[in-house]
């Protein structure tokens, strides 16, 4: 008796293909054909190998080489497979049965997997990858004799440096340190007064006081929230061809800023973004947070083609899961859409099971008003509809008979002189208007304006926020063949990444079918440090904090913690920091403080730059390895170029223009007309936006139209919201120089800067230069810089005055201020 029931038919895909693939194809597949035999194609299998005997004889369960050899005795020389375990009796029986039934084999070649299992199976070995380990692998090392201060971070760093006989570089000067700290924590340069009071404060807690103050500043959330918005691919429009606005998405941006300011525990921050609607349905903030899932681009289209729509749908879903994977877990889940992940232990099955968490979701507007407010709106709206309908009816009732009275006569008159073949003329409103009496015209106008009035009286709809919600009946979910949206395969149920499950199954989180709250389960799994993905979540966010404070992460591939990502430079430190985060209730601010309070953070540039870390050629010979040329070991500080937003915000601060209002709808700053030429976009970006104080808000509040990004932000490598962005690429290209030299907005701020100098430093040129340096660079100018500045100012003033410009002196000062915006020292935080 076989393993099958008597009447069952053997399913090739399910039963036979795996057997052949796992046991035979390594030697008899597309790569190798031992004995001239291949078993990945039906025709080849029927033909057999060099022996000339067919391997398979359909409908013959006794002969045929294949059956003979797999049922040979284990010690026989001709047994197959030649090594290892023989096929089990029920497997042989299956094959026999299948052959007896005719060896039905679809017209295709079997998957060339080189003998690997056809579907990836996640093993305990896979869980041994460093990033998938539980936290708490490493302990804080003992203090090293060369460690400055008591910060635990420095113990890890100095221990590592000591192995290479290196040490931290000396502390940065107070001025440099303060500017670094301000730009890093709040993204704004310190005022001259803030610099002075810091330099004058000699108490041991001077620096810590500043750190505390900046962490408590509302500007902190505006700065650090932006980092998260990069990951969330946040924008104020929907992208693609029509790129219609998402006019209420800004509530999400405000949520992020507020969350960073309030130090919302990171596990809750994540939970709300994944499952606010399920876990906190009455908490508006939590529900706004869930917008995260749906912030990506979507195609808006009128097409009815089912395949086309399915492709858009799966592109959208892929964006959701890829963003969650990269932003939260540092894993490239998107790679598993078409086939098992090539490098990481992520089977396609896991991809589609996790995708099914998102398939029941749809984009929605969340009402923010209270019940009575909504009720009031509803009745006002109904009343308005009634008024409007009445006014339209009145117009119609009057107009139709009036037109009918004159229509036929008009048409006859207009048709006169019509040539044969020409179309009959149509009567337009202007024709009737001409035919009407003066009184009739007046009446018509009155009724029309009554309609307009009624239209204008529409009540303002109550505010809503963009978010996601679950549909009543979740769709069926399938494993899509080869990632094709139009090729559903086997049905799948919700689940999570197998490799990030320890001692619990997805079902343990999801609960019984029918009562599942998929997002809530996802969030619980995501933040579960013991059995779920929590340890990785903590590692990834801690690394991001490090990346932004220090310029590079401890893992320099911040959204790829998989096997293709880089190894951490300081695995013990990363593990310990992630543990600290969890032990501290997932609060981020204490970690920020820990990082910026470290001596590692406060060190200056290695003296001689990177050069000091290079052993001399004589000492090492030509093949000498530089001990820390890439600063992996953190033996010094490297200058960081300001991000696009921080550059723009700094220019606003220095020119005295910054409008510090927080929150609210995105601000539409002007965009050069020649860029604003996209057509067919919904909600076109205004062409008449003015450069006004309302637009001088921090850049995080600028409206982001995906098809029309602010050129200054774009050219300085601002995040492209078409996908999650973990790392700005700090390029150095000529259009950046052109922008700083010629952009009218930059020039206008230079003018404001110059006027500010006159207001604050008077007419004295030397005082102006001093003030300019204090404002722009946070330090007094050196003597040679004063001299160069004064020489420039007088030469420019003379040259401009010679050209007959009445305000040559002030323009010269503007030229000077403009030049300061282009200095490397302004563009970089040392």
């Amino acid at each position, binding site marked *: 008796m076989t393993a099958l029931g008597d009447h069952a038919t053997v399913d090739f895909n399910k039963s036979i293909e795996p057997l052949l693939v796992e046991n035979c194809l390594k030697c008899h597949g597309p790569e190798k054909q031992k004995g001239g035999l291949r078993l990945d194609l039906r025709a080849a299998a029927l033909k057999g190998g060099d022996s000339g005997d067919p391997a398979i004889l359909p409908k013959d369960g006794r002969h045929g080489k294949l059956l003979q050899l797999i049922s040979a005795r284990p010690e026989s020389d001709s047994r197959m497979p030649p090594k290892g375990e023989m096929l089990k009796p029920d497997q042989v029986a299956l094959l026999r049965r299948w052959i007896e039934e005719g060896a039905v084999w679809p017209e295709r070649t079997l998957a060339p997997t080189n003998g690997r299992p056809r579907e990836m199976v996640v093993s305990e070995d896979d869980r041994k990858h460093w990033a998938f380990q539980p936290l708490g692998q490493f302990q804080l090392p003992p203090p090293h004799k060369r460690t400055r201060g008591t910060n635990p971070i420095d113990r890890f760093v100095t221990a590592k440096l000591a192995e290479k006989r290196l040490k931290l570089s000396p502390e940065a000067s107070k001025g440099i340190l303060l500017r670094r700290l301000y730009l890093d924590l709040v993204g704004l340069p310190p005022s001259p007064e803030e610099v002075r009071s810091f330099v004058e404060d000699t108490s041991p807690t001077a620096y810590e006081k500043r750190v505390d103050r900046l962490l408590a500043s509302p500007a902190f959330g505006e700065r650090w929230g932006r980092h998260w918005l990069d990951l969330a691919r946040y924008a104020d429009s929907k992208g693609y061809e029509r790129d219609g606005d998402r006019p209420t998405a800004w509530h999400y941006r405000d949520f992020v800023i507020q969350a960073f300011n309030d130090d919302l525990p990171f596990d809750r921050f994540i939970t709300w973004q994944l499952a606010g609607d399920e876990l906190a349905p009455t908490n508006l903030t939590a529900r706004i947070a869930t917008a995260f899932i749906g912030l990506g681009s979507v195609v808006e289209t009128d097409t009815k083609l089912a395949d086309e729509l399915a492709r858009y749908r799966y592109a959208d879903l892929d964006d959701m899961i890829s963003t969650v994977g990269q932003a939260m877990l540092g894993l490239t889940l998107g790679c598993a859409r078409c086939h098992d992940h090539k490098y990481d232990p992520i089977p396609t099955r896991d991809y589609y099971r996790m995708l099914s968490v998102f398939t029941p979701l749809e984009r929605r507007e969340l009402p923010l008003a209270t019940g009575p407010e909504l009720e009031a709106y509803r009745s006002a709206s109904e009343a308005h509809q009634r008024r409007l309908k009445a006014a339209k009816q009145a117009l119609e009732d009057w107009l139709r008979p009036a037109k009918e009275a004159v229509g036929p006569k008009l048409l006859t008159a207009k048709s006169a002189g019509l040539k044969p073949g020409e179309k009959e003329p149509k009567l337009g409103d202007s024709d009737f208007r001409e035919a009407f009496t003066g009184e009739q015209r007046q009446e018509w106008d009155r009724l029309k304006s009554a309609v307009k009035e009624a239209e204008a009286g529409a009540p303002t709809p109550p505010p809503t926020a963009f978010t996601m919600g679950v549909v009543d009946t979740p769709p069926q979910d399938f494993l899509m063949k080869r990632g094709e949206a139009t090729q559903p395969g086997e049905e799948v149920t919700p689940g999570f990444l197998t490799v990030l499950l320890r001692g619990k199954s997805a079902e343990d989180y999801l609960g019984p079918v029918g009562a599942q709250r998929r997002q809530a389960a996802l969030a619980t799994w995501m933040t579960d440090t013991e059995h779920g993905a929590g340890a990785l979540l903590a590692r990834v966010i801690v690394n991001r904090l490090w990346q932004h404070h220090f310029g590079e992460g401890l893992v320099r591939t911040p959204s790829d913690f998989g096997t293709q990502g880089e190894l951490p430079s300081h695995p013990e430190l990363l593990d310990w920091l992630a543990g600290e985060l969890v032990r501290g209730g997932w609060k981020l601010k204490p970690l920020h403080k820990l990082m910026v309070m470290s001596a590692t953070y406060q060190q200056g540039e290695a003296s001689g730059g990177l*050069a000091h870390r290079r052993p001399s050629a004589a000492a090492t010979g030509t093949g000498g390895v530089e001990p820390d040329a890439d600063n992996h070991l953190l033996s010094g500080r490297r200058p960081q170029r300001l991000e696009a937003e921080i550059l723009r915000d700094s220019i606003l601060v220095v020119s005295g223009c910054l409008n510090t209002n927080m929150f609210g709808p995105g601000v539409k700053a002007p965009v050069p007309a020649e860029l604003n030429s996209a057509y067919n976009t919904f909600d076109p970006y205004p062409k008449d936006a003015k450069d006004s104080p309302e637009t001088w808000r921090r850049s995080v509040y600028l409206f982001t139209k995906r*098809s029309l990004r602010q050129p200054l932000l774009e050219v300085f490598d601002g995040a492209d919201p078409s996908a999650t962005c973990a790392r700005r690429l700090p390029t150095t290209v000529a259009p950046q*120089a052109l922008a700083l030299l010629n952009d009218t907005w930059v020039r206008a701020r230079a003018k404001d800067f110059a006027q500010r100098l006159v207001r604050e430093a008077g007419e004295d040129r030397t005082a102006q230069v001093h003030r300019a340096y204090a404002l722009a660079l946070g330090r007094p100018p050196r003597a040679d810089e004063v001299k160069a500045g004064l020489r420039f100012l007088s030469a420019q003033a003379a040259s401009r005055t010679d050209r007959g410009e009445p305000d040559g002196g002030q323009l010269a000062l503007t030229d000077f201020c403009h030049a300061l915006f282009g200095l490397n020292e302004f563009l970089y935080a040392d």
Partner: protein
Amino acid sequence: MNSQHCGRYEATANRREFLKRAGGGFGLLALSGLVGENRLLAAGEDDRLLRPLAPRAGQLPAKAKSIIWLFMEGGPSGFDLFDPKPELQRRHGQRISVETFFGNPGPLLRSPFEFKQHGQSGAWVSEVYPNLAAHVDDIAFVKSCFAESNNHAPAMFHMNTGFTRAGFPSAGSWVTYGLGSESQNLPGFVVLGNRRGSKGGPQNWGNGFLPGAYQGTLFRNGPNPILNLTRPADITRADQRAQLDLMAKLNEAHRAEHPGEADLLARIQNYELAYRMQSEALDLADLSRESVSTKTLYGLDQPSSQAFGTKCLLARRLVERGVRFVQVYCDEEWDAHGDIRQNHIDMATQTDRGIAGLLADLKQRGLLDSTLLVWGGEFGRMPVSEGGKGRDHNPNGFTVWFAGAGVKGGMTHGATDEIGFKAVQDRVSIHDLHATMLHLMGIEHKRLTYLHSGRRFRLTDVSGEVITPILS
């Protein structure tokens, strides 16, 4: 300026040497970033970090030095231009079972245009392209192209980047990433855009995950082709020179405190480059020294053909100056939903003389031997009518043509079915088109890769075959 990590780069000490030799470049240095998530860099990548647009050789002998891609946005109809279908004429008015993008397909609609055979090759060309018809012996028609998406923006992205989703590097970015550019004072990848803006916007020429230096630069019409190329009104060239001198002096002192930080120097040099570029780009756009006969050749003497003709002339001036990749978009689109006849007459009239002039001019200047021309849209059109006289989108079969360097002229490759609905013989995918372009530029398409998000991406994703029959 994030550090360049990996110990693999032993060239750190030599960077300043590199810089001294580099001498400039539009995207002189995209220093960091390139490494970013890209761990598995090939040898020589370090040089690409420092001089992103420095010319470099591909893996194959290059036939073409430059590409001019005449992008016929909106989806021109193959069987109304180059691929007459007698069967379609015969079955005019019959209904077939077909789904269309906007729904409500009408019956089969014959082409409203007369076709004649031209040249020694006897290629068929519709009456709307009389000037272009004179060049068919230089052209290889590929009449069996197919795409995936039925919708403009995804189809545009597909044709430009190989993916229907936004955010992937465009073909121009890949080519300049692979080969750099001969011109160091102009961008390596220039887009002469649709004056109405293209569907999908700048992502059609975006760099995606490649460094910003490889992004397409949109040139405007008129004397100031690049954003921020002209100085603010209250600054003269002398004023700017004085500013640059002051900045150089101050920046130099700052740099002295940061020896070994190569991008500080790069940034300093960038100002000088930007300063030079202002005159270079203005010179490029200044057509006053082109002869009257040249301007006439491109159709600049007639309002209907002047705008597109000017872009074709600019394209020649760009490749003359060594720019690697030029895309010329038509103004308005071939999106003939309402009236195939009127739309295609208008669009052909706008583009005919410019394209014919470009072919003739490149040839007479000997540039056609080193320049590849590609003509095509993001999809084709339906043989059935829409609303009586129009045609809806059709990604199932359409025509693209190649001419110039490395291309066998006077031939046709592939075919659609008898009514032009679907490519049936020698089907050519968008990846095949891209593979062929890269091949002619000297790049093996499977070897031009970039590691991003844990995967090695290619312009041709996981497929693509060079269309060898059209190679000379």
